[in-house]
């Protein structure tokens, strides 16, 4: 009897154990539903102990959360689903500052100064639109060069004002630039080679004087690029930052600027290790008729900090993310197989608007690879269609659909190249026989019968290198290696840690490596031409900019110097076509696939009316935040 009792007790014990387990899992169903504006304790009581055990203690350990708790008194402690646009794939790791002068900002979501700058918080003078290659007014209304292209004049939008209500003036623009130069921020260091000075002619007129070389501007393209690249900051606020840091350059550049005064439609709301949230500034100047005429639709912009792509993708599928800037393999399966309300720029392959070209560079200083025939033979033998099908899961045009040229895939850039005249220089996909013939003709053959061709008595043996874990790139390099085998060149793959790879690439210590060309911008296709050819880049001790294989061609270099000063479209077309010819004949590098500037897939379960190829409103798929792509925020609608 006793025995049975004991067994029963034990059984009960285990029963409770499993029940607790199940109950535990069950209770987690609630948080996903969320947003219950339920009974809220006043935030002032934040010091009070919470009823929950350990978890309560942890919360208070995070400094960022204390601020959040204070602010939460105005809100319900959540960012309601139907007032918030959730992002993924933009911000990795915790935000560390809001300072556009900081060289170490890890705040991609809040501030990214590039050709298509992210203007959620800080704003640039103009916005670049990759749809038509034009600049659209933001803080600036219009701009014009003088006849000699030495001075660029910008008219400011008189409606623009800062978040503290003060007007945005020409003085602010001038002072921002002067501060960049004074404290040698990377912006200041970079642009001072091309810009002599920025001065305020009057409150609404800015004059940007280009640096001159022999009476001509060094590079007018770079000066124009300033307009859409660099944020404008308020003079009064900058003075405050300078003062509190005693004008010490390091301290000024590292000031976190948490108390920022900016002009954009959103302001920082809260951030911690798990997320960052911006809140709409309902006094935003852009609701003036001269700008957008209204406020952006979402009240909050939020980005959960996911640990990897997989986590972000799961969140997109579960509807916790609206706009996802991540590469998703076989993205079409999300709506075809899983029936989710997810869409991309195009309904069909390549799904995204391609703008850049991940390319492979040959080390032109390496015996064997210094021979154009070897480089071209490798390029000819590669199965690009397999790269596009496997590594990109079809999310790129093939090179038959969009023949190679130096300008890349964007239509506005391709207008600068006479594609038809390049026809004879293109090679067909995986042309193994042609490649072999080319090598035989050049006298690079296999003399010792080991199956590998020799150049000057040495076997042609190379390593194709890219960072480990970049799976699509790794796959591409494998396909390149296979191509080498087909034509009697020994190519093995080598995938080191990213940082080792960076060392190799930037110091030309590789045989074959891979990197991506710059996307579309006000300087394209010039920026791509520089990326593939610039001798100046090649001469850098640590070269992050392009021409990693140190290909030296004086003809190309001469053209590169002439392009920025040329305004005649026909002449420009001639230049870019000539560069494309050199590129295809000499093959110092070769594009392996096309790729979008930003990956873009949206879940339309909460928000809808996102830009798409067929929406016809000229808004580019730059994830609703970048360049002219931010216009999308004003067009969004709730799904129900």
């Amino acid at each position, binding site marked *: 009897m006793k025995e049975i009792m004991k067994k029963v007790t034990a059984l009960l014990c285990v029963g409770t154990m499993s029940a607790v*387990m199940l109950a535990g899992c069950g209770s987690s169903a609630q948080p996903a539903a969320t947003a219950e504006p339920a009974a809220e304790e006043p935030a002032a009581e934040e010091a009070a102990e919470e009823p929950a055990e350990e978890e309560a203690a942890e*919360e208070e350990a995070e400094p960022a959360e204390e601020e959040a708790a204070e602010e939460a008194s105005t809100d319900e402690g959540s960012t309601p689903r139907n007032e918030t646009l959730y992002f993924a794939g933009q911000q990795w790791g915790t935000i560390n500052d809001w300072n556009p002068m900081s060289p170490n900002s890890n705040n991609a979501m809040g501030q990214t100064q590039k050709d298509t700058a992210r203007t959620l918080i800080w704003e640039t003078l103009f916005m670049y639109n990759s749809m038509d290659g034009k600049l659209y007014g933001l803080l600036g209304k219009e701009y014009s060069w003088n006849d000699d292209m030495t001075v660029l004049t910008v008219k400011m939008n008189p409606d623009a004002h800062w978040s503290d209500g003060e007007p945005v003036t020409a003085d602010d623009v001038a002072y921002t630039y002067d501060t960049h130069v004074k404290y040698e921020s990377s912006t200041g260091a970079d642009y001072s080679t091309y810009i002599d000075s920025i001065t305020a002619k009057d409150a609404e007129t800015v004059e940007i004087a280009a640096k001159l070389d022999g009476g001509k501007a060094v590079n007018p393209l770079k000066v124009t690029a300033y307009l859409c690249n660099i944020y404008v900051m308020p003079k009064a606020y900058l003075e405050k930052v300078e003062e509190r840091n005693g004008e010490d350059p390091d301290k000024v550049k590292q000031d976190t600027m948490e108390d920022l005064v900016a002009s954009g439609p959103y302001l920082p709301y809260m951030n911690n290790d798990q997320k960052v949230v911006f809140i709409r500034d309902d006094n935003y100047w852009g609701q003036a008729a001269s700008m957008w005429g209204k406020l952006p639709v979402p009240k909050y912009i939020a980005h959960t900090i996911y*640990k990897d792509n997989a986590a972000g993708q799961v969140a997109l599928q579960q509807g916790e993310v609206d706009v996802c800037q991540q590469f998703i393999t076989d993205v079409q399966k999300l709506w075809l197989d899983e029936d989710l309300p997810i869409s991309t720029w195009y309904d069909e392959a390549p799904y995204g608007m391609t703008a850049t070209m991940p390319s492979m560079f040959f080390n032109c200083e390496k015996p064997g690879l210094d021979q154009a025939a070897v480089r071209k033979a490798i390029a000819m033998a590669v199965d690009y269609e397999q790269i596009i099908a496997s590594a990109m899961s079809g999310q790129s045009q093939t090179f038959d659909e969009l023949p190679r040229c130096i300008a890349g895939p964007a239509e506005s850039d391709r207008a600068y190249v006479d594609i038809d005249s390049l026809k004879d220089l293109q090679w067909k996909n995986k042309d193994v026989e042609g490649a072999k013939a080319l090598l035989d003709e050049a006298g690079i053959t296999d003399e010792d019968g080991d199956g590998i061709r020799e150049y000057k008595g040495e076997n042609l043996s190379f390593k194709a290198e890219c960072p480990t874990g970049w799976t699509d790139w790794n796959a591409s390099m494998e396909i390149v290696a296979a191509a080498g085998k087909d034509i009697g060149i020994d190519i093995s793959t080598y995938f080191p840690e990213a940082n080792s790879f960076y060392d190799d690439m930037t110091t030309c210590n590789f045989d074959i490596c891979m990197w991506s060309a710059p996307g579309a911008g006000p300087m394209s296709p010039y920026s791509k031409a520089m990326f593939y050819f610039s001798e100046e880049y090649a001469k850098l001790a640590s070269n992050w900019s392009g021409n990693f294989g140190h290909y030296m061609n004086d003809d190309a270099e001469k053209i590169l110097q002439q392009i920025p000063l040329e305004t005649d479209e026909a002449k420009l077309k001639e230049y870019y076509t000539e560069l494309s010819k050199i590129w295809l004949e000499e093959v110092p590098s070769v594009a392996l696939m096309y790729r979008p500037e930003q990956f873009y897939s949206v879940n339309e379960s909460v928000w809808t009316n996102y830009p798409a190829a067929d929406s016809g409103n000229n808004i580019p798929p730059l994830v609703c935040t970048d360049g002219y792509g931010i216009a999308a925020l004003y067009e969004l609608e709730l799904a129900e």
Partner: protein
Amino acid sequence: MKGYKKYYGQKLFWYLLTLIFAVILNFVLPRLMPGDPVSAIAARAVGGMTDSTAIQKVINDYVEKFGINKPMYQQFFMWLGNVLKGDFGVSFSQYPRPVSDIINSAVWWTVALQLPAIIVGWLLGNILGAIAAYIRGVFDKAILPFFLFVSNIPAFGMATILLFVFSIKLGIAPASGGYGYDLIPNVSWTFVKSVIGHYQLPFWSIVLITIGGQAIGMRSMSIYELNADYVKYSRFLGIKDSKIVGYVFRNAMLPQITGLALSLGTMIGGALVAEIIFSYPGLGTTLLTAVTGQDYPLLSACTLIITIMVLIANLVVELLYGVIDPRVKANQQD
């Protein structure tokens, strides 16, 4: 008391020695990784720049700032000096955020997750082991083997399975984070509920794999003790069964306490990985970011914190052991 002094003295000495080696390895090992971490930071800083001298200037600036151009022993003593002052330096990957700030925001999540999980797993495991030994039947034939099977699934595997089943397929548990994606930390029931909800999967993924290993040990020890002479003798004497069982399990527990210390030690290997799968904001995820970003200061600090936590946990258990097990004292007095 004399015996204890010797016992404790010896333990402390060995732990101190371990700590010294751990500190040195913590510093040296990450720095032996190939590649230059400053490259990555500099890459971010010079992105989009086109002027060559300006780019070079920025890069030199960083090398200087992080002192990685100095010989390693100099770096070590500088680092050690700062650590003793509680200053772990500045993170490379989240520069200029101080490492201590990052650790401080992560470590509590980890402690709150791991300690309860390991202790609950240990308790459940011991209960199961004891029941399996004493009652046998279905416990010994089905439940224990099942948990034994489960315990051999690596932590990340378990985490992935739970994530797939409960979050992606059934949709009853959140997939990632420490609280709801749409919440802002605040003092409210909604928030606390969300935190508890997000706690479940990481918690159970650790508990489930801890149970089996503990149970099997407890079962063997219990069976051994149940057949010991003193048990038979007690039975002859007619001592109540419940009383005997009390003796048995007290004795069988002893090696299990070592087991607890060991499982605290393996925290890093297994359980921290579970955090990564669930994007849980603890040390595991911080450690991963530090590794991928070659963030030496953060990496050293993370591993140092973990080492110290494990050493302290082990030390406490060993010291307790001296009190619990009279044989230890007896040994020392010989």
